């Protein structure tokens, strides 16, 4: 691949591998448009929302973190008993051409009725196939821009810029990309009482002294998946199965000023109605195993990518 405009290297621009080139105009960069704080005090059912308006005229990409009652920050995106204490409660972000909306969905336990604090990042980069003009003024800017191929840098929209000194970059130290392998053991339900639940976590001390924006992933088998991930009621591209109550599996990550904690939780359900045949219910056929769900032993590679972005730091554009 050619370096069509410029590149910044750590050592020798001619010999550094691409991964070590700090800035390379062949590739686009995420550009932060504005970032700030929001809070929601949900209603008695745990439902509520907060709107953060923007003037981009298209639906932007975003990053969204919620502060948990234990003081940790967690990326939102899935129902989570680990993050919210209730697998039926959750928090989502959605965007359109006018706003970023953060929404809480109350669960059975109504834990979501607690006030929630958020840090949001709205990006210049799109969340949709938009080809029109944004509302961002393109005149009077100074600095440096690099447009996509075949886009006139003087006329191109901001979202068509591979980089622009007008916007903050989302950056990280290469030392802050950390991988670890976790061994999750075989597990299954007990037979006469309760579901079994087990969890495994890895703590990564990031050494930054503030709660950082981070992204986390896990590799299981041949696929790479994003965290948070949850299969309580989820569809999974791996098997297109609508996961039932029995196959509960979730992965969450959260951070504070000391560490990023990445946690797996698995649950194997005991179904008394099904397996004891009470009230004339059906019996399982001889030869069938008993646990409603057995989680097989797994070795999982987790990756945590920590950015030098303070979730409790200064804001811009609120």
């Amino acid at each position: 691949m050619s370096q069509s405009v410029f590149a910044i290297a750590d050592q020798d621009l001619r010999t550094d591998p691409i991964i070590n080139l700090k800035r390379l105009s062949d590739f686009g960069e995420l550009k932060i448009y504005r970032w700030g704080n929001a809070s929601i005090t949900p209603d008695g059912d745990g439902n509520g929302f907060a709107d953060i308006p923007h003037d981009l005229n298209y639906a932007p990409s975003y990053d969204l973190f919620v502060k948990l009652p234990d003081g940790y920050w967690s990326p939102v995106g899935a129902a989570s008993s680990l993050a919210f204490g209730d697998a039926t409660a959750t928090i989502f972000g959605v965007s359109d051409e006018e706003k970023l909306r953060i929404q809480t969905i109350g669960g059975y336990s109504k834990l979501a009725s607690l006030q929630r604090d958020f840090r949001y990042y709205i990006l210049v980069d799109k969340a949709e196939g938009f080809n029109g003009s944004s509302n961002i003024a393109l005149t009077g800017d100074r600095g440096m821009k690099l447009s996509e191929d075949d886009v006139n840098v003087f006329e191109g929209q901001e979202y068509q810029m591979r980089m622009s000194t007008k916007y903050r970059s989302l950056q990280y130290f290469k030392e802050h990309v950390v991988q670890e392998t976790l061994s999750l053991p075989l597990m299954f339900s007990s037979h006469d009482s309760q579901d079994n639940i087990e969890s495994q976590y890895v703590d990564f001390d990031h050494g930054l002294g503030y709660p950082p924006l981070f992204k986390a992933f896990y590799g299981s088998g041949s696929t790479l998946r994003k965290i948070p991930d949850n299969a309580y009621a989820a569809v999974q591209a791996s098997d297109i199965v609508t996961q039932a109550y029995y196959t509960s599996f979730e992965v969450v990550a959260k951070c504070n000023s000391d560490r990023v904690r990445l946690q797996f939780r698995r649950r194997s359900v005991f179904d008394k109605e099904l397996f004891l045949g009470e009230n004339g219910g059906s019996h399982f056929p001889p030869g069938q195993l008993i646990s409603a769900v057995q989680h097989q032993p797994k070795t999982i590679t987790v990756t945590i990518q920590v950015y030098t972005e303070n979730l409790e730091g200064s804001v811009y554009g609120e």
Partner: protein
Amino acid sequence: MANEKMFLAGDDAQNYWSLDYADGYYTIGNHPSNGDMDGAIRFPGVTGSGNCQEARIFLFVNDSSGLSGKVVLDMWGIDEDNTSPFGSDPLGRAKTSESTFWEIDPMPLVGGFVLSKNVTNIVNEIRNRMGWSSGNAIGFLLETHPSNTPHSWFSGGIDDLGVGMGSSISYLLIREQAAGNFSPAPKLISPPVLPGPKNWGQAQSYPGVNVFEATDDQMYYTSKKRVERIIEEIDVNTTANVILQIPHGLSYRPRVTAFAKSSVSGQRFDLPRHMPSSIQTGPEGDTLEGDIESNETYIRILTTQNAQVHCRIFLDEIVP
């Protein structure tokens, strides 16, 4: 070796014994006419040897005194290497030193039910006998306890009592490894050594902030750190509940992000989006769910509704 195994007493009449009933049934408890009705049950073909982590006996009950009172019993193993079929009264056979006390609350009999008890110590004692071999039979003796409520009893056995429950399902369950509630020790990764200040490269501070004095928090960009590099952005349309596979042409699993546009509300959702177990209404009535992952060949996207998806592929390999 399979971790979880189930061994049936089955429909063999010689696997059950009752002091008072005909062959093919076990009994336990106190009967109005027969008095205490001790019993026995046998499970042939038990595999494995040495200690297991969990063993449970499940007694299929198809006749009982109903709600009259508690059934209370002591249960032993038959202290034999390979318990032979119950062609004759087994109640006098040697007992294991391990036993268990079992107090069963009154319960209705509606079409039969199953009772369960942990017998790990008994099974381990037998499987640790010098003469034990995998595949041998294990027997249990059921002896009515003095605290049994008078006239409270139950029985089960081969399936000819007409309760319509199919095959008898009294069974012995053995788990060689019982990992329930097992949580491995957490791992801790120490903080990395970050690069020190550099006097070369590129740095850009906020407007109005001296770039030579700016803190990290006041920087728009500095070449001592990396940025994520976007290889490509693509727009695709998904069909509800059909996995869309997009070749990415890389030799590794790239990091990908995606936003799905709901056909209901027009909102854009960050994937994966998993609704709670009891789906509740999302923003403006949306229940869209979706998932995204990558392997070494494809980006794979699944949405529960037809959706437009904006996908972003990053250069950097996250998991080798």
